[in-house]
């Protein structure tokens, strides 16, 4: 599995996972709600993330490299002005849809900020802790358990899949085109059986240690009010930016008010 977590001992790392999850969710909602016309506001959001990254000692190249996951949507966003509906405008000799340009910019800016925030969250929190945090935020226990088991066994199953592939290749097989699908699928079938049977054995092992359908809650410390307050700084500042942007766009406010809001981050 891709390793996104960067162990560390910064204030950001030490925050309880449920606080960070809600903070990132709040930040993402603020970003999504920011009017696309307010360019400066997106710069403000980016600065906020930069401050968090600095506090967590996550180097910018680390974040940028991992933003590749959004590539398909970047392509989509770039295509929008080309294939979008009229009215059109001309830019560098190419006829582009005005609405398409706005839509493309909107997706690109908001998705990038969201992805960067998620990367920072994953970099400063272990996946396991994030699931505990999700449990604290009242995500159904059974669902969290399933995800926890998946996290525990993903490497085991991937290892089995890798060894099966090496074994196939050692006997002169190379998957090149559609005709080789049956072989790959038969391996997948064998892998499913192995996974399912391991699930049954794990269940037996759980029963043998007193499992009765409910996972015991362990090491799940509640967050203090102070920690919640610290975590609220990011979404709070982002909301201030978004609010200022709305006021400006709807023409009542004074441009630049958002900048003072930003200082809170």
């Amino acid at each position, binding site marked *: 599995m891709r390793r996104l977590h960067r162990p560390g001992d910064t204030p950001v790392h030490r925050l309880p996972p449920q606080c960070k999850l809600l903070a990132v969710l709040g930040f993402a909602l603020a970003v999504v709600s920011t009017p696309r016309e307010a360019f400066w506001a997106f710069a403000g959001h980016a600065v906020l993330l930069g401050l968090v990254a600095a506090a967590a000692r996550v180097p910018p190249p680390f974040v940028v490299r991992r933003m590749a996951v959004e590539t398909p949507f970047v392509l989509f966003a770039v295509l929008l002005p080309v294939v979008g*509906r009229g009215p059109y405008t001309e830019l560098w000799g190419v006829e582009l849809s005005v609405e398409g340009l706005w839509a493309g910019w909107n997706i690109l800016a908001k998705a990038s900020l969201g992805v960067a925030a998620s990367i920072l969250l994953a970099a400063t929190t272990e996946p396991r802790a994030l699931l505990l945090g999700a449990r604290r935020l009242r995500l159904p226990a059974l669902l969290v358990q*399933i995800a926890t088991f998946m996290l525990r066994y993903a490497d085991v199953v991937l290892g089995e899949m890798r060894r099966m592939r090496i074994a196939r290749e050692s006997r002169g097989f190379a998957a090149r085109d559609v005709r080789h699908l049956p072989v790959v699928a038969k391996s997948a079938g064998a892998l499913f059986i192995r996974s399912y049977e391991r699930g049954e054995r794990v269940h037996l092992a759980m029963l043998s240690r007193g499992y009765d359908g409910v996972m015991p809650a362990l090491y799940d410390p509640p967050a203090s009010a102070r920690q919640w307050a610290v975590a609220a700084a990011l979404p709070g500042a982002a909301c201030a930016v978004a609010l200022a942007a709305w006021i400006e766009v709807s023409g009542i406010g004074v441009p630049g008010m958002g900048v003072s809001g930003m200082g809170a981050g």
Partner: protein
Amino acid sequence: MHVPDGFFTTPVSIGAGVVAAAGVAVCLRGARRELDDRTAPLAGLVAAFIFAAQMLNFPVGAGTSGHLLGGALAAILAGPYTGVLCVTAVLLVQLLFADGGLTAIGVNVTLMALVTVVVAWGVLRGITRVLPRGRAGLLAASFAAAMISVPASALAFVGLFAIGGTTALDVGTVALAMGGIHLLIGVGEGLITALTVGAVLAARPDLVYGARGLTAPLRLRATPGAPGPTPSPAPGTATSTEGA
């Protein structure tokens, strides 16, 4: 194709979140019925399998390749309720690795877990009811179910786009383009799903949820000279008559 933050408007994201939460809640109850207290370990291991299977890339043509969504496969192998939970768990864990937006988790669960599984399961049930019972029928149905689940998911995406996306695009054109491309990807999904189900069916038919009810009913051997077959006696009686 994990939808990131900002792709849909806030109301659409929240609406999809409500749909996803309701769907997952129904599946949590259903899966408990299917698997009782084995749900967590078994669904977790099946989710790990789906996660691994998603790394199987297959050529779509023109140099591009698609990867398995896995919703149909999970539903046919583990049952529709468990299938939804498995794909949801995969999406949750991928979210932890920054794949897919936090505010878009509702959209992603709706599109990739609920729509694929519901459509695939509906198609599977529909076809197996019409086709003759047996292995070939189930495999054909698996192929169709998985194939249709992919463009269905893509069209649901376009639907959400039409409700709350931008007005920059003509929805009809987008629907046609997305549906067309994903029908092609769906063929790959269908092939892998049907072949995988076939492989499991060959070694452990009892593990294929979609094959339940397809196994032949127990046959009873009548003892020569005995009066005609008695209507469905208990299994215990069956073994005793067989001894003769």
